[in-house]
Every structure is written in C-alpha cells, then in structure tokens.
C-alpha cells in the first residue's frame, strides 16, 4: 500500500507546489508595486494602498478565496473564473500584501545617506533604487521573507475550500478506503519540502554575508 499511497500523495503535492510556485512568481513583483504605492508621495494612492493592505492582511485568506471565486458570480452575475485561476489570484494578492510590508520595512531601513550619495554622483532615481537600495534591502529582508514563504507552503492547503485538489485532499480521500495514515503522512511532504527551503535560505543568507551593513 505504501508505494501507491506515496505516488497519489506526490500527485497531490505537485498540485500544492503549483499553487506555491505560481503564487511566488506573481506576488514577489506585485508586492513591490503595492509597496511603491503604499510609499507614494501622492497621498490618495498611498491611502488607498495602505487601506487595501490593511483589508487583505486583516481578513482570512480562506474568506478571500471564497469571495474571489464566488463573488463575481453572486454580485455581478459574471461567469466564475476556473477554480485554479481563482486560487492563484487570491493567493497572489494576499501574499503581495504581506511581501509589500516586508519590502517597505526593508526600504525604510536604508539610510538617507545612501540615496544622497547616489544623487550627488548624478545617478537617476531608477539606478539608485535598483543598484544601491534594492540589493541592500534584499539582504535585510531575507529572514522575514523566508518565514513568509514557508508559511505559504502550508497555506496552499487552503485551496481546497474552493475544491482545488491538493495534497491534504489526496490524503483525506484514503479515509473512505479505511486508511487514516495517509492523511498523517502528508505532513512528511510539507516537512521535507520546508526543510529543503530552510537549507536554501540559509545558503542564500550565507552568500549575502560577503558584506556587512
């Protein structure tokens, strides 16, 4: 029984991984945009973005999933998105908001003298941001980002609330066949994957340790 269960769970975990990878691919850059918005000098945009971040971070991801999947149909009589698409949209928005706050903390921690040193050398705003500020921000936010990313691995299990197949579902489906252990066994997949991520983040942090400050 062990091998077929493992294969079935691997299939489920691949679905979880797809949610994980696509969410990261969209939310990492989207978070930067949200972050720029919430730091904007244009007050209405800043207020709007901060309010948006507050709403997204202040409500459960599970609820956001439900609203994004069922909302358009119930409220505007629009056709619903495919379940998987709705999942990625909800996750990407949710995580972009968390990431944006981490980015903002990192950006605000860079001393003004770094910007001014770039300015007096005649660099453009974009050059100062991408060549001077961002590289330093990345180093400073590695720890909170790795926390958030590991949380994301586990959060992918929420997708089943709108009937997206993933590993917990795969494990649970064995209960009907009288097997309880596969559900517990799913934990091993999360553990191993998060273990790998932890090692990866430690490597990156070590690599970024070539300088201080």
């Amino acid at each position: 029984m062990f091998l077929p269960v493992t294969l079935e769970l691997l299939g489920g975990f691949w679905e979880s991984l797809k949610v994980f990878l696509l969410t990261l691919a969209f939310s990492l850059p989207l978070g930067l945009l949200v972050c720029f918005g919430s730091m904007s000098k244009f007050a209405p945009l800043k207020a709007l973005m901060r309010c948006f971040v507050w709403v997204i971070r202040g409500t459960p991801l599970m609820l956001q999933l439900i609203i994004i999947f069922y909302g358009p149909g119930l409220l505007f009589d629009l056709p619903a998105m495919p379940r998987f698409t709705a999942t990625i949209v909800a996750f990407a928005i949710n995580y972009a908001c968390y990431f944006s706050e981490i980015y903002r903390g990192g950006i605000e921690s860079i001393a003004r003298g770094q910007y001014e040193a770039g300015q007096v050398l005649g660099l453009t705003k974009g050059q100062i941001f991408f060549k001077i500020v961002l590289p330093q921000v990345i180093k400073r936010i590695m720890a909170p980002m790795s926390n958030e990313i590991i949380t994301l691995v586990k959060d992918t299990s929420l997708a089943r609330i709108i009937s997206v197949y993933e590993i917990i579902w795969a494990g649970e489906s064995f209960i009907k066949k009288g097997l309880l252990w596969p559900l517990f066994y799913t934990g091993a997949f999360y553990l191993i994957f998060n273990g790998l991520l932890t090692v990866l983040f430690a490597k990156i942090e070590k690599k970024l340790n070539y300088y201080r400050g």
Partner: protein
Amino acid sequence: MALLQVENIKKRFGNNQVLKGISFTLERGQVLAIIGSSGSGKTTLLRCLNFLETPDEGEISVGGKPLLNLGQTLTEEQVRENRLHFGLVFQNFNLFPHYNVLENVTLAPTLLNTDTPERIKAHAMELLEQVGLANKADAYPYQLSGGQQQRVAIARAWAMHPEVLCFDEPTSALDPELTGEVLRVIKGLKGEDRTMIVVTHEMEFAKSVADVVIYMADGVIVEVGTPEEVFDHPKNEKTRAFLQGFQESF
C-alpha cells in the same frame, strides 16, 4: 570669468531662515575653505550647491551657465544634470556597503556610460593610487578604517569629474589620529583643474590649503579673504571672537 558664481542664495526651513543671501565666486583650480560655528548653515549651503536642497532664491552659475533657472521649478532631469557639475564628500562617507572599493568608485561612471569599462576601471585605479588605497581595491567598506573609507569616498567623487568638489567636514567623524591621512590626500589632490570647497573645523589645514577662506555666521558670510587676511588680520569682530574661541578650545 569665475568658474563658480553663487548669488544671493536664500534657504528657509519652516520659520528658520538658514541661508540669508550667500554670494561668492570661485576661480577654477582654487580651494575655498568655509569655517563657521555649528548651525551657521555651512552644510545647507553645500547641499544647495549639490541640489540636495533647492534654494528659495538666488542663482548658481557654473562656467557662466545659470543652473537654477531663476524661480522656475527644475525638472528631475535638470536637477540631475546640475548635480553633475558638483561632487560632495559627506561627513560620514556614505560608501555603498555592498560594493567593494573599486566598484564604489566605478559604479556611477559605469551606470552613466562616461567611458569604456576598461578606461573607467583604469582611471578608478589611478584615483585609488592617488588616495593611497590601490591595494584595497577588492576590500569591502566594513573592512576599512574610517580614514580609508573617507579616502575611497573622495576617489568615488572625483571619478565623475565634477567641476567643483565639496567636502562637508570630511574629518569630523574620524578619530584624531586618522584625520591627518585624509587631509593630506585632499591637499595632494589640489591641482590646476581641481576646484574644491571644504567646510572644515581644521584651521591649520584651511590655512595651508585654501586660496580663499569664508567665515559664515547665522546664514551670512561675515568675512571673505585670503587665509592670511581672515586668520591673521580678521576685520570683523565676530570673526575675531570665533577664531579666539577656537584657539582657546585647543
């Protein structure tokens, strides 16, 4: 014609009128030392010259070209172009911690495509040689002493060939035993086409390196002259009191 002409620069922060009409001229290759007590507006003046602050009034011209466009708001690109005429060495260095010494010096010329990569690097190495740090080209800022960091900052600023390089108390964040090396480097850089403005509390240094000395108090220039005139025969009572107080504190 003077390389730099500063006319009636005024700057206010809220109700605090920090610069109350600053005017002076500087010839190419000259070194101007600015002295004055804390809060007199020296840093603000250098920041205006480097367009980190925008003066409320007045005009700054380099080589006869007015930069402030009298009253009109400058675009971001105009501000950036204006900055290229000037360089600024900060009190606390502000090196880029994630770049090594050579990269700190080559970053701006490389990003702004001032030359070929090989020539930018060769020139940076020459500058590092001049500030005595060619052997530290691969070191990161955290591996250097304060004096060494400031010398890198000086090389970094010269690498962009500013027409006027400003120094804001370049040695005041350093331990006393490190100030000498930085002052020697600044002195050694003095040359035909290197025009410098140095805000400093090092009177001996100002005396020996400056062609012109300005004494500032409360946002105005109280006295201008050669080092002999200002230090040895100050005309103004305020200057005399300032210099006297300075001698007593040592």
